[in-house]
């Protein structure tokens, strides 16, 4: 079962590579993503046994990330049917193939408990995304790709040396050298704090770079801005969560080694810094895709702060994995439609979207309302949980900075989004072939409805899943 998660997408990638017809590939893509989604659901219901040696083990944390990633992939795959119909000028072979490779690697990240293997998988996702960012084949996209690749590779390399430190710590401590999470947690007490500290710092910076915590976020706006809408969705909704999962693993380790306080403080500081940075850069943002990128920076900041706060906020962080990831999907996919229709990302040219594209515009507007934490959408639940636990824990200052940056961000986004969607279409705006169709509007709409549903009603199984996951991250008294 677990193996299927990895292998199936690879088969799909191979088929996409072999198929000669551009029209057919998106459907193949959707087919395999659908199968992957099915397997995911099956795995969520019947938990597979831990593999011998404990290399593969789908625990609650993995389940949450796997669920969000697989859902997002499915939606993006379906969207690609409609989207690529408007991008027939160039072959989509690379796109479909690398998407599936990325899916496979992503699943691997979620199910493995071997940090080394997880690192390899993460690196694979990084590489496999590079050609997708370069999909548009122009100067800007090559620049974006270059920055993305260089910065993320450096980050991942730092993560690697962090892992080496960890491994060496086990050797020094004369315990059985291993990078299996469970072994490490078992022997955590014996490891020498010097190496462990160094390891945590390098891992935080490494995975933080991949996740896009400020000031390591610098690749994000470029990559998100230049990549096609659905790639942006996958980057901000999928890969971010994978990196966050890696951080969660490190967090588990910290809990075991009792070095948690330093790690938590570091997380809070970097998280708040990310939110403030996002607030600064979102004000008067002239490019709505870049704005979304900064919003993604903001939300990884939120997740980091929540992780740092611990307690009830953990639940918020875990729920935010789903809420943020899927809402980002809504925003990026609809913004992709808007981009197609106006053939511009500049907010001074994109006006009156509700007039020209009632559906995409409405979805974009609703997504904006959702991502800024307004009920009745899912992000409200996670964000409110985090804020309230900040204040309940008496962390007034953290809560205050948190709320302040949320306010500024809301103002910034509102001043960008509302003029976009409202009003009349400027007379001189470019006429393009794009029209809202079922395949371009359906997927984001479905995600939006899902967000609304999760905002008012969390099904019991999901609730238990979240609780189990939170239990894994409890600070032991």
């Amino acid at each position, binding site marked *: 079962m677990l193996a299927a998660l990895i292998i199936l997408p690879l088969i799909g990638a191979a088929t996409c590579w072999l198929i000669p017809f551009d029209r057919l590939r998106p459907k193949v893509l959707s087919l395999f993503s659908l199968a992957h989604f099915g397997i995911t659901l099956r795995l969520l219901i019947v938990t597979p046994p831990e593999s011998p040696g404990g290399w593969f083990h789908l625990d609650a944390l993995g389940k949450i990330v796997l669920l969000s990633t697989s859902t997002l992939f499915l939606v993006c795959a379906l969207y690609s049917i409609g989207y690529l119909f408007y991008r027939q000028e160039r072959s989509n072979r690379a796109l479909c193939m690398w998407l599936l490779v990325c899916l496979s690697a992503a699943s691997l990240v979620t199910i493995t408990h071997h940090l080394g293997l997880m690192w390899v998988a993460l690196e694979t996702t990084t590489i496999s995304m590079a050609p997708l960012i370069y999909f548009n084949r122009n100067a800007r996209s090559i620049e974006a790709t270059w920055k993305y690749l260089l910065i993320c590779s450096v980050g991942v390399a730092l993560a690697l040396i962090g892992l080496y430190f960890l491994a060496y710590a086990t050797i020094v401590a004369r315990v059985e050298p291993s990078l299996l999470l469970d072994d490490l947690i078992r022997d955590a007490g014996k490891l020498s704090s010097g190496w462990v500290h160094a390891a945590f710092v390098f891992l935080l*910076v490494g995975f933080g*770079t991949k996740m896009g915590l400020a000031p390591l976020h610098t690749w994000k706006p470029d990559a998100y801005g230049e990549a096609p809408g659905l790639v942006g969705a996958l980057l901000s909704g999928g890969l971010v969560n994978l990196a966050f999962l890696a951080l969660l693993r490190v967090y588990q380790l910290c809990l075991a080694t009792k070095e948690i306080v*330093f790690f938590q403080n*570091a997380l809070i500081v970097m998280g708040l810094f990310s939110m403030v940075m996002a607030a600064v850069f979102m*004000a008067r943002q002239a490019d709505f895709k870049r704005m979304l990128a900064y919003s993604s920076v903001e939300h990884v900041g939120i997740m980091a702060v929540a992780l740092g706060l611990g307690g009830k906020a953990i639940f918020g962080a875990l729920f935010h994995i789903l809420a943020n990831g899927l809402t980002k999907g809504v925003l990026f996919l609809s913004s992709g439609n808007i981009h197609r229709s106006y053939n511009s990302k500049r907010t001074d040219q994109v006006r009156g979207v509700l007039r020209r594209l009632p559906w995409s515009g409405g979805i974009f507007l609703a997504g904006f309302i959702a991502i800024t934490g*307004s009920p*009745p959408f899912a992000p409200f639940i996670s964000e409110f949980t985090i804020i309230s636990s900040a204040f*309940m824990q008496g962390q007034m200052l953290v809560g205050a900075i948190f709320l302040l940056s949320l306010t500024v961000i809301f103002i910034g986004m*509102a001043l960008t989004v509302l003029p976009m969607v409202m009003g009349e279409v400027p007379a001189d705006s470019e006429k393009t072939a794009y029209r809202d169709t079922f395949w371009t509007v359906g997927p984001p709409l479905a995600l939006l409805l899902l967000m609304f549903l999760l905002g008012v009603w969390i*099904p019991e199984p999901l609730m238990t899943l979240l609780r189990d996951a939170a239990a894994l991250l409890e600070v032991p008294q």
Partner: protein
Amino acid sequence: MHSALQGYFDPALVALVAALVIGCAGIPGLFLRKPGPGQILSTAATILAAMAGVPASLQLLFSHTTTTYLLQWSLPFGPCELVIDPLSAFFLLPVFIVAAAGSLFAVGYWPAAEHRATERGLTFFYGLLASSMAILLMARNGVFFLMVWEVMALSAYFLIVVEHERENVRRAGIVYLIATHTGTLVLFVYFSLLAAQTGSFLLPPVGSLSALSPYAAIMALAAFVGFGAKAGIMPFHLWLPSAHANAPSHVSALMSGVILKMGLYGIFRSLTFFYEPPLLWGVVLTVCGIASALLGITFAVAQRDLKRLLACSSIENIGIITTGLGVAMMGVSSHNPTLMYLGMAGALLHILNHSFFKPLLFLGSGAIIHAAGTREMNLMGGLGKGMPRVALLFLIGSVAICGIPPLNGFVSEFLLYLGFFSQLKADSLVYLVLLAPVLALVGGLALIAFTKLYGSVFLGTPRSQAAAHPHEAGWPMLLPMAFLALLCLLIGVAPQLAMRLVSPAIAAFYPQPFVAEIPAGYDSVLGRLSLAGILLLTAVVLVTLLWRWRLGRGRVATAPTWGCGYQRGTARVQYGATSFSEFVVAVFNGMVRQKIDRPTLGGLFPRSARCSDVPTETLLDRVIVPLFMLVGAWSAFLRRLQYGLIHLYMMYIFATLFILMLWAH
């Protein structure tokens, strides 16, 4: 009749169902292909629901019952209770009445046939807004409260921007949205702290929290800011005038008549949680309240836009209510039942009154705009001849809002005055009485504002072609206005009845038995008041009879107005809205600013020139917007960080690594 109802079904359930029905009323219209039926359907449903909901809430009010339902939800914020107590029931009344009136008005004012594009959404969000307000009054779980609160705020936003092709509508919408969302974030803090105190998100029962705990002050402040931003109390009123002015009129009626009250409800409800509130709370409320009243009405006097004037006068009325509440809180903290009772009664009754005459006036303004095609009062005039019924109803509304006997506005202000004076004998809080002259000044200014409004709109001769041929509003527009006017007259002539409504709500604050016997004393006073009102009406009738009798004797001729010797007087030389208020605005210059441009006339035969006075929103234009600009410029400096140089980015990573290393070791 209420006792008869009681036997059959549970009034609380009726109210709840009514609220839900109103919420769903707009949904069918979204799916119907033909534009008309959906609107009719939703209107019918809303009115029926209101007709069920009003008696239900009345019965809940009279029977002092508190009903609790437990909502099954799966969100991780503890149990979610829906509770209707007398306070909620009291606030439910305006929700049902105004919602029904507005939706009937919409049939004539925003007919689906003419507004195919917008009508569906408008109807839907209107219903959503009304029902969310009703549910809000029942919500007793902080998080659920917040969710309903935000649904209310957002649907109000979509109602405001329904005509978003117009620039100023968009601007009003953005300002409103930012204001309300900021307020909501402050409420996040409030409810979090509340939960931290009580240990659960359920709202605490009456008088269960100490007001002296270190967090209490922060909580009170957060509640005041968060709810005050919605109610439009003075420092937080910025969004209010433009939002109310630019929304469709029946929406403005609902917003001004009821949504503001939701903010006040939040403050009322929050104050019930604490026992022994410090005197300071009452003082703060009173000061902000009287300031809002005075400044709000001063702004209103200066306005030239019909609906802006009404919106500013909403600030004034909210201020009066807040003053009453503050006085009442002073009474609570100084253990002075009389003061508390009078303040609270005045505030609550004024809430009820304001939610009758303000919607009446806004609906009237809708009819006027329909007829004259503009909101600029300087272009109107003489509409009274074309639309006499609207003119009459509007006159009633204007007299009521000025707080003049024998209408309802006077009763609530009367109670407040009694409250101010009641401390004269006692030696504590005697300075409270100095509020009376200020309130009197406010009354005088209100008189100016509404004479100006009524005079420049309905009286005299038309000042523009647009206003030259007004048409009387249809019955769907007249009926709701007439109903509201009737309510105003009823409360004005029989204030004792109104007190029956108010007393149970007061009991929510101050559950001591005294609430039973204090009103008895004031009932007689109010009885005399109604007597005086009736006497006044009789006097009017008598004098009229005398006049008619003498008129019958002499001969009656008609002629043009005497021009005092000026033969070439045109409609343009009438005293317009701006010229009417120019004198008093000059007197109060500084409190209200105007962008005045006066032409300089040179030479023996100066060329034609224009002169204009435009009231400006001082705080918004001179303080807030520049502040944003400043922050933007400052952040522009930080934006250099993202300067596209990958080497810098590398350096950030390096630096982060380095700092963390130093921190770790």
